[in-house]
């Protein structure tokens, strides 16, 4: 029965595809998309100020609250700035590693580096955040290393910097920035090295033969050709930073981030519409970013 059925389906493409697609599409369509639309709908509700209950009537009140209260605008700006800073730093740090993997490493070395980047990427997210809490704590490794290098003065003046500084590395934007870069770095290295692998060595030789110095070749040949990889990696670093709420609450300064606001508003504050409106912010930003990245050819390097 099954046998004749499957023979029957072969060659009857449309029916066969529909049959295969139905279960996963139903799942994602109802569980995932259904939930997303519920969330979107919630963001157009508002809570009644007196009863603190959600009023299920469509209104733009919650969005008005999001975009007119200076504290909320600050949160969005702070999160976007952090995401941009983390993206740029990840790209700069990832480049030498990705370049070495793509251009110089032999097959064995390449596999070693690949596993070396992949393992920390897949290691438990929470354990890594926790590790950084230990490292950055007052008596932790970071201050031990800085003290044994005799750099306490430098650290103190860094932490005394207004805005980004704080009482210790574990409770400053600098500390949070380091943790973010650490967490998302592998997501930048892998697509970047894939893109760099596709840059033909002959182009670099041609550039040198035509008299370009290594720096010029790098700027005018390597970076433009690696752009799709950079764009692909930056989608991850940007999007992951925008949505994260655990890192800012475990390692970090007192200022709120979008993710923390979403978590807190739906939980203790009980304001689901505001939480939903806040969660629409990263969706819109990521959609904008994706359309920009698409123009740079990011999807060819994924």
């Amino acid at each position, binding site marked *: 029965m099954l046998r004749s059925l499957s023979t029957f389906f072969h060659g009857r493409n449309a029916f066969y595809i529909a049959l295969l697609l139905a279960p996963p599409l139903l799942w*994602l369509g109802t569980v995932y998309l259904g939930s997303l639309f519920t*969330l979107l709908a919630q963001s157009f509700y508002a809570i009644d100020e007196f009863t603190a209950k959600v009023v299920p009537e469509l209104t733009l009140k919650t969005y008005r609250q999001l975009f007119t209260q200076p504290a909320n605008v600050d949160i969005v700006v702070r999160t976007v700035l952090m995401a941009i800073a983390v993206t740029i730093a990840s790209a700069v740090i990832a480049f*030498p590693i990705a370049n070495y993997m793509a251009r110089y490493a032999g097959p064995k070395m390449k596999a070693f580096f690949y*596993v070396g980047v992949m393992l920390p990427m897949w*290691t438990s997210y929470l354990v890594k955040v926790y590790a950084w809490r230990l490292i950055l*704590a007052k008596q932790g490794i970071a201050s031990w290393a800085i003290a044994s290098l005799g750099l306490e003065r430098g650290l103190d003046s860094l932490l005394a910097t207004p805005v980004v500084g704080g009482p210790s590395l574990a409770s400053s934007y600098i500390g949070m920035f380091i943790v973010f870069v650490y967490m998302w770095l592998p997501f930048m290295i892998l697509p970047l090295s894939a893109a760099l692998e596709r840059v033909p060595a002959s182009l670099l030789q041609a550039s040198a033969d035509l008299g370009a110095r290594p720096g010029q070749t790098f700027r005018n040949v390597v970076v433009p050709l690696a752009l799709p990889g950079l764009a692909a990696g930056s989608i991850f670093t940007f999007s992951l930073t925008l949505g994260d709420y655990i890192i800012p609450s475990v390692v970090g300064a007192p200022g709120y981030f979008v993710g923390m606001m979403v978590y807190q508003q739906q939980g203790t504050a009980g304001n689901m519409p505001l939480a939903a409106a806040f*969660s629409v912010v990263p969706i819109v930003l990521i959609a904008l970013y994706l359309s920009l990245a698409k123009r740079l050819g990011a999807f060819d390097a994924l």
Partner: protein
Amino acid sequence: MRSRRDWNRASLGQKLAAAAGLVFLHAPVWVIVLYAFTTEDRTYQFPPPGLTLHWFEVAFARDDIWAAMRLSLVVALAATAVALLLGTLAAFALAKREFRGKESITLLFVLPIALPGIITGLALLAGIRSIGLEPNFWTIVAGHATFCLVIVYNNVIARLRRLPGSWVEASMDLGADGLQTFRYVLLPQIASALLAGGMLAFALSFDEIIVTLFTAGHQQTLPIWFYSELFRPRERPITNVVAVVVILVTLVPILLAYYLTKPDEQGPGS
């Protein structure tokens, strides 16, 4: 002459930068392993004043940790099973044939990992509540299965795309029916990709916190146990031990998945 050598061999600076990057990525994990053995239980003092195995004993005697561990394992197994089924079906449907609307369907199949976890989590919570449910065991599984199926889908579709279409045609031409072709031609080729996808899905689910915090209600998975310990530092040494256990439990499937999908073992078309 010098420039020619530059293209083939990395300078010392380039090697050092690459090596430093790897050390940066790995050092924090080793720090955790080291701290699991420290005799100091109040501060994060470094270097640790002494080493002991005592905390492993204490942690293994804790019922709440075992309960959380069991829940995480069961959730991960259930989510992986659902993800394997749905992800494989989707991969077979979308691997080769072109049809209208395929692009938006493909986008839908990557959306759960392209959007930040907090959005998936909050959306699922809103969805669960809108149909009158409260978070329970099955809502955790449903949430995990949603992003795990993307991982399985990606693994299987990558393999199917490398598989020459002529193999299936040859099998059918030689008189095999659809089921035989699947059993003897397709399945052996995609088996390792399926296994790898399942391993990664398991590791992802076992370790997931961002979505789970929204969909778990009062249930305590191991990551949720761990998360609450981050804000209650009195049991630091036990937390360290659990961290090491979590690293080991996720490391094994990830390494297996890597060896199963290594490029040089991928058979035809690669």
